[in-house]
């Protein structure tokens, strides 16, 4: 990512595959279901039906950098992110969750889902630490694979979205990011 931006590099970028050539919705759903069973609980189900996200949402994501570069983003209502965090913490969940608990737990789910998606993509690739906040913008609608699910009756989306073309840095979408 820090190498000199030569014409050769640009031509190489142009030849990059888009995510829909590399993975499909069913694979993403299967990966998410496996993560849910392991982290959230054996009886936890993700139902693949589209549903409207509420107004107050929170995202967690990891970046994948390699032959395909982009982000794996989980987005759900803030209250659902808190419920998910409680489900992960189980008996050790405090009565009142703070932002750090939610960032830790919701970020870890993105980390596990993102790591499995990265393993299903061409490598070698790097995986970033998870971030929580306002999701990175979708740069290219053609380089996007999104799965809408419902967990415990609440909507949640899993978006695998390309990072090209680049946006100016810093991006407004990350202003409210919570460092982990």
């Amino acid at each position, binding site marked *: 990512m820090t190498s000199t931006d030569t014409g050769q590099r640009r031509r190489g970028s142009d030849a990059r595959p888009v995510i829909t050539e590399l993975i499909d919705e069913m694979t993403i759903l299967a990966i998410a279901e*496996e*993560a849910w*069973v*392991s*982290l959230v609980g054996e009886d936890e189900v993700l139902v693949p039906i589209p549903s409207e996200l509420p107004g107050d949402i929170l995202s967690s994501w990891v970046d994948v950098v390699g032959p395909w570069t982009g982000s794996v983003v989980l987005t759900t209502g803030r209250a659902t992110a808190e419920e998910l*965090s409680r489900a*992960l*913490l*189980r008996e*050790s969940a405090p009565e009142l969750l703070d932002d750090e*608990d939610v960032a*830790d*737990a919701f*970020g*870890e789910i993105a*980390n*596990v889902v*993102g*790591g*499995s998606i*990265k*393993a299903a993509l061409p*490598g*070698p*690739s790097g*995986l*970033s*630490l998870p971030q929580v906040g306002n999701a990175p913008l979708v740069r290219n609608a053609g380089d996007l694979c999104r799965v809408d699910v419902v967990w415990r009756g609440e909507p949640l989306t899993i978006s695998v979205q390309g990072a090209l073309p680049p946006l100016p840095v810093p991006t407004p979408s990350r202003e409210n990011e919570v460092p*982990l």
Partner: protein
Amino acid sequence: MKILIADDSRVMRQIVIRTLRQAGYDDHDIVEAEDGADALAKVGSEQPDLVLSDWNMPNMSGIECLQALRASGSAVPFGFVTSEGSPEMREKASNAGALFLIAKPFTEDTFREHLDGVIA
């Protein structure tokens, strides 16, 4: 037996401890470290019998911790518990001296499969 669990996520450390218990390894001392540098220091101070470490962590990654341990002469048994489960990461882990790599998401069966024979 003393087991050092290194992960920058407090939630994941708790899940690893819970899974160890569910897998039947419930009679061991647990020490926690919040990154590779903390793990490296605690291998020295706590003398664990086994290290279970995440890969991607701030300050010092799990693989950097393992390399630093081996460079210092420590032969402490070391395994990864990480979302980095690709073949190239497994090869890197093995080449650095890791005994095993458990990919997240895991189950208690995955733990038993890798830890039987490692944990007494």
